[in-house]
């Protein structure tokens, strides 16, 4: 089971955090600090796996963003790497060539897409088509572009 998923930039700015087990705020901050320090300090082309306390850590860099997750001791690292990749693919499909800015400005979307894919730290739906469909379906429930532009800025 995945314990947490973090997205952070090369400068160590946290862009998304998802916790699948309850942790108090102080512990969360420590995890984030340790992960960014550890992962950002790795030389390029190192292997994608680490041990941290009793967890396995799997991370991968996509452009300017690091995707990093903590796994239980028995979990499959290679597959976790593909969980990260599938998430990137889903973001890509939704935003069209996703970049860090998309995730900053549409952070709530990034969370929604993640929720369609993972739940309670387990993979819920691995089919890209199905996930994408359900995200689009929920977008259909939303406003049109004209509505968007006519909204007040404050």
């Amino acid at each position, binding site marked *: *089971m995945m314990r947490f998923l973090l997205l952070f930039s090369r400068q160590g700015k*946290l862009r998304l955090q998802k916790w*699948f087990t*309850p942790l108090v705020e102080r512990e969360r901050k420590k995890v984030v600090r340790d992960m960014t320090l550890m992962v950002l300090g*790795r*030389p390029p*082309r*190192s*292997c994608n*796996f*680490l*041990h941290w306390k*009793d967890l396995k850590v799997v991370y991968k860099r996509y452009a300017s963003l690091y995707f990093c997750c903590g796994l239980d*001791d*028995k979990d*499959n*690292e*290679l*597959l976790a*790497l*593909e969980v990260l*990749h*599938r998430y990137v693919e889903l973001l890509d499909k*939704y*935003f*069209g060539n996703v970049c860090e*800015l*998309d995730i*900053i*400005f*549409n*952070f*709530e*979307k990034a*969370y*929604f897409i993640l*929720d369609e894919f993972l*739940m*309670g730290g*387990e*993979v*819920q*739906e*691995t*089919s*890209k*088509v*199905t996930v994408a469909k*359900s995200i689009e*379906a*929920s*977008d259909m*429930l*939303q*406003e049109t572009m004209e509505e*968007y532009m006519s*909204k*007040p*800025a*404050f």
Partner: protein
Amino acid sequence: MPAVSKGDGMRGLAVFISDIRNCKSKEAEIKRINKELANIRSKFKGDKALDGYSKKKYVCKLLFIFLLGHDIDFGHMEAVNLLSSNKYTEKQIGYLFISVLVNSNSDLIRLINNAIKNDLSSRNPTFMNLALHCIANVGSREMAEAFAADIPRILVAGDTMDSVKQSAALCLLRLNRTSPDLVPMGEWTSRVVHLLNDQHLGVVTAATSLITTLAQKNPEEFKTSVSLAVARLSRIVTSASTDLQDYTYYFVPAPWLSVKLLRLLQCYPPPEDAAIRGRLSECLETILNKAQEPPKSKKVQHSNAKNAVLFEAISLIIHHDSEPTLLVRACNQLGQFLQHRETNLRYLALESMCTLASSEFSHEAVKTHIETVINALKTERDVSVRQRAVDLLYAMCDRSNVQQIVAEMLNYLETADYSIREEIVLKVAILAEKYAVDYTWYVDTILNLIRIAGDYVSEEVWYRVIQIVINRDDVQGYAAKTVFEALQAPACHENLVKVGGYILGEFGNLIAGDPRSSPLVQFNLLHSKFHLCSVPSRALLLSTYIKFINLFPEVKGTIQEVLRSDSQLRNADVELQQRAVEYLRLSCIASTDILATVLEEMPPFPERESSILAKLKRKKGPGMVPDIEEGRKDKNVNGGMEPISTNATTKSTPSPSTDLLSLGSSPALSSAPPSSSAGGLLVDVFTENHAPAAPGVPMGPVADDNFSRFVCKNNGVLFENQLVQIGLKSEFRQNLGRMYIFFGNKTSTQFLNFSSSVICQDSLKTQLSIHIKPADPTVDGGAQLQQILNIECVSDFVEAPVLSIQFRYGGTLQNIAVKLPITLNKFFQPTEMTSQDFFQRWKQLSSPQQEVQKIFKAKHSMDTEVTKAKIIGFGVALLDRVDPNPSNFVGAGVIHTKTTQVGCLLRLEPNTQAQMYRLTLRTSRDTVSQRLCELLSDQF
């Protein structure tokens, strides 16, 4: 501004985010945030009712601010309001806010639960999914209480949409993890298991996760999932890469589901049904074969997914540990990966081999890769890969290769990353101790360790070397010589000074014959380091000096001179000053005899779990250091091999603190053993005063009321009447034991002609040898008399010896006879082992005379923790997670007698409904099984 704005972009939010991004400084950002917070607060408080959109926008802004790392203390109510909106997007943001900013405010939880309840019963799949996600994200106990009953119903209902089923399965899984007591499966079990047959692969994937977690806790109930999982797996691995459509990932059919099915199967032993077993073997072979096929794609995703399945299959093969051909193939496959150009694969191969190394079947096969692994240690660029190589070397180490492996680790230590040095030091220390064939090599290795990485040598490591040197007299002279030589180096690490000081203080006399290491030379050498050391080390050296005064009267003058100097007697540090004053005084006033008694050589340390091992376990977290301790130690269980280094075997003697030098506490002549008057070594009192078998002593009825209370513990009150209280304190190690008996005179009158003896009847005389030291013939009123019993177990025995005491109280002769709780189980050494080892041994001990079973009614309440404590107290290692049924208890240990060792396995199966237990004992000797069963069954 965002590159794309799909769906319901909120303009105000986008503006705010770009404002924040444009802030040049942290202060500016905080200012902008405070402005926004004030704005939102005023909107929320304002008279005008906010429309849904504005509410959503502000809640979303608050969420953004929170995710930036700022505290949010309002807005929860508005978020809860959004939950009951009819608009999907508003509801969605409401749920997101609740999920991220969980607040255990009970009023709100009630409102949130209400909203969730409405959505769950809405029959709108999107709303149901949102609600289920919220439950899974928050996962609090209150939520579990509210919904644990509803979710299984949604999961198995015939009309539930697939996507909702998936969410329900995982939501249930989440609740089961946090509040397992609230999620009773019972009636749902078989319908949940049958989800494995579902048409929709997404549903099967989610259900497999759920079933795996439930099966880990309750394997028996989910046993039927095995055949379904094998069938499903078989269909996947034999399918063409396009059959599964969208569930094929880069030409690999359903990798997630495959891995989950393989994980599920790891909750169980190999299937008993030959057909299912065969089908599973075929699957595993197919997976192994596919690894040899050329890749269908050059993309890394393809090879990752394919290898993920392969590694999981190998884990299952290792878990089953039953098919030698598959094990060998797995080992070969991992061997190939060890040299793969992908760093990730090398890393994983090293990791998997660690578990393979702990299997008895494949340990030898793993050892053939030693050169590759050593090479990895030397050449890998990535520190985390090198660390796995260290782990694997540690796991594959045994007596045949320990010298090579330790040498390589020491080599590596010189250039190793600072972050992993301490761990390597611990590992070297453990291996050197555990597999030492020759203790001179051990001493050399540890001194080398201190030389190379002195700063990383923790106290536990150098404490341990001293414990070992003190416990083995064959190495003491060598140790003294070696530390003496090592101390010659102009700059040596302080840890070496400590070890050197301690060892020379104890055993310097063994090398004092050589004029090159005469007492004075030894003293001058140590004292030359004195001023460079920290306070604790100086304190230790002062103790060494006073020990020197006892060992070498000829240097007394020189040492007294040193102690008398102002820098000692008036030292600013109170500890040093006190030691100097007291030692000086002691050396002046005490006679040689008293000095010799006070400063006697240290008695052997009680055997206990290596404190180094404990430290390594702490460092790595529990469960990360299983290999050498649990995996292969089982050889001892059959009593075939005598362990050479008993020091490393685990023993749950309540150990005194690891601070063996008691530095920093009062000076207390730390080296004088508390029980020195009792004669130090267990064996050296055996020559004294054999307790008379006393056949003529008149014996009244033998009291045994409290006897059974001592089966699982060692201390307590054995007997009490109006006159006298008899207390016991005992300790056992291997086949030896020592018992302290305390006779308390409860009256105000003196007991006269007090005498005590221990009587062994009939065959017990040859099975147990007991020596008692004579006690004072008088016990004053209100006083306590202590008597020491030394016990040796010669062979296994059934009866208990009887303690008989006589004394005169107020003119009448009192006779008391009490059964002494010296029982066979006292001579247990606990043995840790893995589940597979346990059941393998279990099967080997299956002949009828080896097994004794008893089914009996519980006499006490059936409390798990109490039962655990009793089993541990009984002397065996309580093996956690070994029995597939978690409510059963299993244990393993070895009975040590002088003539033989008997490995014992036990299993206790409680049935809480019937208030009954079934206890099964299997040992290689029928009399032992019988006796242990009698003893233990009486305890529950």
